């Protein structure tokens, strides 16, 4: 399988006053198209910085980053925005939905920065919401949705542009464990059925257990890169887990 991400000798330095801080110390790895990768490490390990660089929100100090055959290091701000818009879907720990804006409009947001017509935007947003099982919640606002539902809206938003990769930074961090597993089940399904490359950053080994490959960072260095022989299946785990509460708790 071809690599969707190729990283070579990636270095990221910050400057805190006069003291340079080496956050990433010459990292190299590749991620194959269609893989499901977890990036693990304690806070301060450089995991978040790597996610920002992979997500084209930040640039490396030196080294090579090829995304889908494009060398990202040479692009300017607006070109990076274009890449984020076309190739990458983001899922955040805090969902980052626009308040007082319906689920459908939240999902449409990335399409607002393309030439998509209003009709097609709406159509694609509906499809994306359907894919995360929220077809009946289109007009709900984030405040009317549970945490898990909000995160599913966020996943729909990351899907709507048909991205090559989805980057999820602690996607289950703000959710209870069962809802977390539900989210992982969606990720696994999208990975298998849609062939979307998933990259999930987490500090939780239980979450990493659902990935095919786990990359561990400590202190800005790659410490462990293991392929999981037998990734856990979120669907199956959900069947085992007792339903602690009714599926939907919706305020109002």
């Amino acid at each position, binding site marked *: 399988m071809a690599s969707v991400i190729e990283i070579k000798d990636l270095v990221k330095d910050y400057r805190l006053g006069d003291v340079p801080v080496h956050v990433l110390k010459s990292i190299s790895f590749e991620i194959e198209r269609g893989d499901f990768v977890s990036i693990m490490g304690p806070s301060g390990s450089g995991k978040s910085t790597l996610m920002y660089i992979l997500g084209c*929100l*930040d640039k490396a100090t030196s080294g090579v980053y090829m995304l889908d055959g494009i060398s990202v290091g040479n692009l300017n701000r607006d070109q990076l*925005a274009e890449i*984020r818009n*076309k190739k990458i879907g983001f899922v955040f720990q805090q969902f980052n939905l626009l308040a*007082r*804006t319906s689920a459908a409009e939240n999902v449409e947001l*990335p399409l607002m*920065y*393309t030439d998509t017509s209003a009709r097609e935007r709406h159509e694609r947003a509906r499809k994306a919401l359907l894919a995360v099982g929220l077809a009946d919640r289109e007009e709900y606002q984030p405040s009317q949705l549970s945490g898990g539902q909000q995160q599913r809206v966020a996943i729909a938003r990351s899907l709507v542009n048909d991205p090559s990769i989805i980057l999820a930074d602690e996607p289950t961090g703000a959710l209870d464990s069962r809802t977390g597993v539900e989210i992982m089940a969606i990720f696994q399904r999208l990975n298998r059925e849609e062939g979307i490359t998933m990259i999930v950053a987490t500090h939780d080994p239980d979450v990493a257990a659902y990935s095919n490959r786990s990359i561990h960072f400590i202190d800005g260095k790659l410490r462990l890169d293991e392929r999981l022989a037998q990734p856990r299946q979120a669907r199956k785990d959900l069947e085992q887990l007792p339903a602690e509460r009714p599926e939907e708790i919706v305020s109002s």
Partner: protein
Amino acid sequence: MKKIVASIKIALRALKVNRLRSALTMLGIIIGVAAVIAMVGVGAGATKRIQEQIQSIGSNLIIVLPGSITSNGVRLGSGAVATLTQDDAKAIAAECPSVALTAPTVRGAVQVVYGINNWATNAQGVTPDYMTIRDYTLLYGQFFTTQDVDAAAKTAVLGETVAQNLFGDSDPTGQAVIIKNVPFTVAGVLTPKGQSPAGQDQDDVILLPISTATQKVLGANKANAKAVGSLMVQAISPQAMDQALQEIEALLRERHRILPGLDDDFTIRNLTEVFEAQESSAQVMSILLGAIASVSLIVGGIGIMNIMLVSVTERTREIGLRQAVGAKMRDILSQFLVEAVTLSLLGGIIGIVVGLTSSLLISHFAQWSTEVSLLSILLAFVFSALVGVFFGYYPARKAAFLDPIEALRYE
């Protein structure tokens, strides 16, 4: 175009989220625009009224008044001695090349009687040229002629106020009125002129042939039967005014045998100049009012800038998210710029309505004439849009230059 409509929709939604805040921010612009429109309207109205009054007086007018003379070391006031005569009037008309017409006038208070009605008014003895000089037209009948003046005919032309008080709305032509026990036939009624720049009712007057007036009504001056109260002179053109003034002065000094170095025994006034001074002071006034009102528009703009800065800070995470999902710098810039301009334009439109309403109220209740021009409305509209762009640009730029990572992390 579609994109602009979409951004305006987004902007309106964002403004709706903080209704009260948006309304208060707009209030600054509303007050500013309304103040500009109302104040400029008041100023323009005043200017227009003065212009109309100048028109009503007549154009290129010079008035010659009998001046003060010194008698045994006592200086007597203007008009105290009748130094001007009908012959002076004729001489000015004949000998001054810059003068078109000259009309001698005498005046006095009279009681006019018609049937059981009577009315106190001002009688003026004039010649037919007076009508031309003062730009009079007739509502009814006709003016008396030079023959009437020569024959001292007992004929009178009434001002509209007088006609109204004696005859009501009916045409009085041919009726007889009695002035100082002398019966006069009404020859006509003047078209109303309204107030003079000095605030007098120009229609409360009765015009008689100057000969009849001096001989039968007002009584002749004992010293000089041909003395007149004043001379109305019309110059041939606005440019000839100064020339005419000089010619009249030279001629009258010669005719009155005033030695060089002694004071004139008459006063010459350029009426147009007096009123033009009033007009330009009204214009200065309206510019001043407009300028003061513009200050409030600028204050309103600063209010918009302030609120937009708050809004950018509040929505830092939103900006970060939009950047993360692919918003380019100009997308963010235009989003916030459109929001600011929407605020200011909305305020501008409401302000125009408020300004129009208040200028109507001012003219209704304060009895000031106001004059709101389309230009001032257009200007206010454009200016409020510019205020939005100008004061919205900095916050919008600040938003566009946010670092996406820091914006996303912002608490």
